[in-house]
């Protein structure tokens, strides 16, 4: 049975118990995460947000919008959580945020940035805004402890 079938079976079983995030987990490469705007509704704290490895597996990261569902045409904040692969929180990360709509070749309508460290590995990302429906890319370039890596979030807004 292929990886895909196994992953599907796991999702299917898990889905019977609780509403879950609509990840297409089995087809992801490291450091790329696909979200739907409703997908983070269960992730109300860093513990329950889905944490995934960055591209070169130097960190493990989660990112969630503070406003659920992700709003349109409205400034809002996100929380980015950074850990080491061993699960220890990273407290001194520099996080650069870029992105936009790949299909339309335009960036964000704003210049979002991490404004402060909240403790517990959480960073406050402010100035997020999405101005149209479609697929958005949020790219986090993370540097800490002498190393750096990237984490990409593809967000589909209806």
């Amino acid at each position: 049975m292929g990886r895909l079938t196994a992953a599907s079976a796991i999702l299917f079983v898990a889905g019977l118990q609780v509403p879950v995030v609509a990840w297409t987990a089995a087809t992801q490469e490291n450091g790329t995460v696909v979200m739907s705007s409703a997908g983070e509704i269960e992730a109300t704290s860093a513990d329950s947000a889905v944490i995934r490895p960055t591209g070169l597996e130097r960190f493990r990261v989660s990112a969630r919008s503070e406003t659920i569902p992700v709003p349109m045409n409205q400034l809002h904040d996100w929380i980015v959580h950074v850990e080491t692969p061993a699960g220890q929180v990273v407290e001194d990360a520099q996080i650069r945020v870029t992105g936009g709509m790949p299909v339309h070749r335009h960036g964000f309508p704003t210049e979002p940035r991490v404004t402060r460290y909240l403790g517990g590995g959480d960073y406050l990302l402010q100035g997020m805004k999405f101005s149209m429906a479609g697929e958005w890319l949020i790219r986090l370039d993370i540097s800490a402890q002498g190393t750096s890596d990237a984490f990409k979030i593809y967000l589909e807004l209806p």
Partner: protein
Amino acid sequence: MTRPGLALLLICIGLYAIPAGAEQPPVPAPTLTPGNTLTWSAAELATLRSLWIGSQSPLPPDPSNVHADDPQAAAFGKKLFFETRFSANGAVACASCHQPERHFTDGLVLGRGIGEAARNTPTIVGAAYSAWLFWDGRRDSLWAQALAPIENATEEGGNRARLAHVLYADPEYRKTYEALFGAMPDLSDRRRFPDAAGPVADPQAATAWAAMADADRAAVDRIFANAAKAIAAYERGILPGPSRFDSYVEDLLQHAAKASRQTLTADEISGLRLFIGKAKCVMCHNGPQFSNHEFHNTGVPPVPGAPRDEGHYQGVREALADEFNCLGDYSDAGEGDCAELRFAKQNRLLLGTFKVPSLRDVAATAPYFHTGRFATLAQVIEHYNRMPIAKVGQTELRQLNLTATEKSQLKAFLRALSSYRIE
């Protein structure tokens, strides 16, 4: 990828694609209305609902203006909106270009006050929903915007000292001003407070302003800002009304096929389908105001001989430098406010971008675009259809390849966005 694996994955994704949001009632099945054989998918209905006036959230607060929602400030502001004595020739008011009977526009290519303005006069209707004002977004609040035409040489040609003196000398204005904003300082000493003074193009007024004491300039600035905040309070109440499009969406949401009520014609419905589909208008003209209030480059041809217009690329710098912006001394905003300014984009992708106007009542606000050179909706649609290469910056838009019938249907739909009270 194995076939059974793929099938199983698709089934799982299908199970999880059920929207988790509990705030809205389930989207109803598509319905047929008389004269319309088109049906809408669930996704299309969700888009229609998002455009519906009933989906409009309340007016965003303006923390920079503590008087923004005060009815007495609005009543005062309404008088100031029609006041001509601030202008150089005593004949120009805000209402000269923003004419209420013309949907707060003037029907001209370029605004005309003392002289000819640089761009087409935009409407004020629904302006309260935008974080940035002017075509180039060079002001970050309604009140910061209201100040600018008063001192603009081609518009009112006035200056802030003149405005202060008008308010001070008129007993009724003075009484109303002081009830709202506290006592005015004594402006009677013309050496301290010249008749005409302000950082304006007029050399005499500019020299007089430079010669004033700092504290006296601040006093005049404070009066100027307060007057503008009152005007903004009035403008916040100028909002669009429901249209036949909104009635149509209400009918759909209620499963009703109200044969007795004229909602949209078959052509208008086809135009709506194009608006959210092939013509892609909804990408930027989204939400209940039919605008994302952002800045985009739509390749509008520059006016031959006119200075290069870089739009919001220049505008954002002006907004950041404006002494009356959200972060300035006259703003009432607190810590944590002013996020639009603090996170404003400034890079070269803004070159040649202009504000997305609302399309509500668009049939009433000809001519179109910041240059005002598109006299009809048909011409606007033709521009989007052909989408020439942008002369300033770059546009992300592409040609649409609409047929003649489709263009006319799109136009019909745009006309159906007129508020009932105007039709």
